[in-house]
């Protein structure tokens, strides 16, 4: 949860990592952020919702709350792919947006390498935990002129052992060899990055994501066979 402003940067952010408590904490998180940012709901331009991919319950509570908060405040709810926010942050788009500069891939290539500075032209494989020993992944080639991550393939689900093959299948084996990978055990989606990505997308006149949750998995259920005999 975060409140961000195109000019003012990140005004407030709070993250709850306990995935079982989403419904419990979401109200306090919203209230805290509004309060810390000193912003009333009707002063917001829009609400951005991360549509995943993500495990069912937490994702659903987040989307339900984003839509309902936007509806309550009378503001548009803009859907985004959560992995795009991770790439936006890791590739340096977030920092650029906050500093108000445009990205310059050429400059970065020639500049003396700083250990912490992200490379906006570097291929990035975003990997997050999908639970049940599976991973969600998205591939990005870097940032574009507007400072937005360039997505190579839609988010997908894969078993760890089959990840490379799946990525190579849609992005080529060179990408698999070169891409920096995020650590699925510690790659939270920053709400500030999500919010600021929304700001930059809007300013650049780019489309938002489809308004549907990216569960990428069917509900666990099997069609029952004949009733079991009892005698």
């Amino acid at each position: 949860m975060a409140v961000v402003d195109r000019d003012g940067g990140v005004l407030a952010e709070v993250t709850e990592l306990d995935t079982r408590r989403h419904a419990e904490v979401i109200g306090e998180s919203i209230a805290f952020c509004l309060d810390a940012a000193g912003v009333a709901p009707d002063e917001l331009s829009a609400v951005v919702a991360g549509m995943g991919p993500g495990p069912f319950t937490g994702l659903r509570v987040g989307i339900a709350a984003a839509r309902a908060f936007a509806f309550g405040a009378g503001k548009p709810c803009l859907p985004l792919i959560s992995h795009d926010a991770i790439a936006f942050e890791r590739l340096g788009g977030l920092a650029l947006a906050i500093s108000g500069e445009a990205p310059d891939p050429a400059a970065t290539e020639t500049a003396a390498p700083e250990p912490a500075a992200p490379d906006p032209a570097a291929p990035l494989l975003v990997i997050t935990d999908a639970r049940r020993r599976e991973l969600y992944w998205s591939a990005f080639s870097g940032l574009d002129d507007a400072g937005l991550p360039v997505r190579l393939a839609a988010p997908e689900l894969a078993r760890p052992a089959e990840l490379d093959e799946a990525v190579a299948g849609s992005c080529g084996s060179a990408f698999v060899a070169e891409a920096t990978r995020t650590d699925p055990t510690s790659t939270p989606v920053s709400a500030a990055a999500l919010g600021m990505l929304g700001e930059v997308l809007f300013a650049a006149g780019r489309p938002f994501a489809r308004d549907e949750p990216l569960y990428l998995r069917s509900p666990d259920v099997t069609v029952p066979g004949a009733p079991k005999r009892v005698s």
Partner: protein
Amino acid sequence: MSATEPLVLGIETSCDETGIGIVRGRTLLANVIASSMDEHARYGGVVPEIAARAHLEALQPTLEAALAEAGVTLGDLDAIAVTSGPGLAGALMVGVGAAKALALGAGKPLYAVNHLVGHVGADVLRDDGSEIELPTIALLVSGGHTSLLHVRDLLDDVELLGETIDDAAGEAFDKVARLLGLPYPGGPQIDRVAADGDPKAIRFPRGLTLPKDLAQHRYDFSFSGLKTAVARHVEKLQNAGSDVPTADVAASFREAVVDVLLTKALAACAELGVPRLLLGGGVVANARVRQVAAERCAAAGIELRIPPLALCTDNGAMIAALGAELASRGRAPSPLGFGADSTLPVTSAQAS
């Protein structure tokens, strides 16, 4: 806000119905329900993940439809109420998360309420303007619950007399329907087939009615043994190569369920000296339940209340009604940190 007639919007997502209702005090203004029942049909019962996904998709359209039906805006509301339990955890969480965000976005107080007490609260929304009469015994029967309550005060004095110790009655209807090759949901199918059957053809067991069971489970229910007895009966006929008299089996099964439900409910009325019985929950749609309730209540001199069906099945209006009772009695809104509580006890009308 008007102290006595608050305008309240209620959100209900405890099972497979997304319900949004709007009331002004004890007057019903809107009751819109989106059901995911059809999506569960091929699985023979409610699939929690499918229900939760459906809630997310249905919430906003249902919300918009309810506001339009009531002819009010979010800004007009005095409060919002939401079911915080009991029910399916994943389904409840969608409603709880949305309700908190809606309340914050619109700047409205929020009440977290109990689903089962909400079923009783539905009876305050009488269209003839009469008042709910208390105390009452309440029998709440659906696919998710089978509970017998003693209600002396809607907010502060609801006692759980008993509940099912295994399957809910509605679940038993679904399972027996499947045994008989009938589709889901089983209630209306059993009702339809039983119309031509003899309810006395087969004497199926009445769960927890023997003296030794009554000592411990005076007002509790059990339908698991009944379901097994029906299965055994059907298998015996099939093994012998005989036709299964579906109509008689359905009618006799239904009679066993209805008999035990109403025997225990009327025993509670008699033993606790309460001359009223209120029915709630989706199983109230069953014609035989209503008929036997009417006959036995009349014979025992007990006043029977059955709210309109749209207020008996899970709905948001009953949640709004309970929220309006809390607001009009000056109760403080719920703090924002409440959760979805799938086992919320009936003694808390308002969750904390």
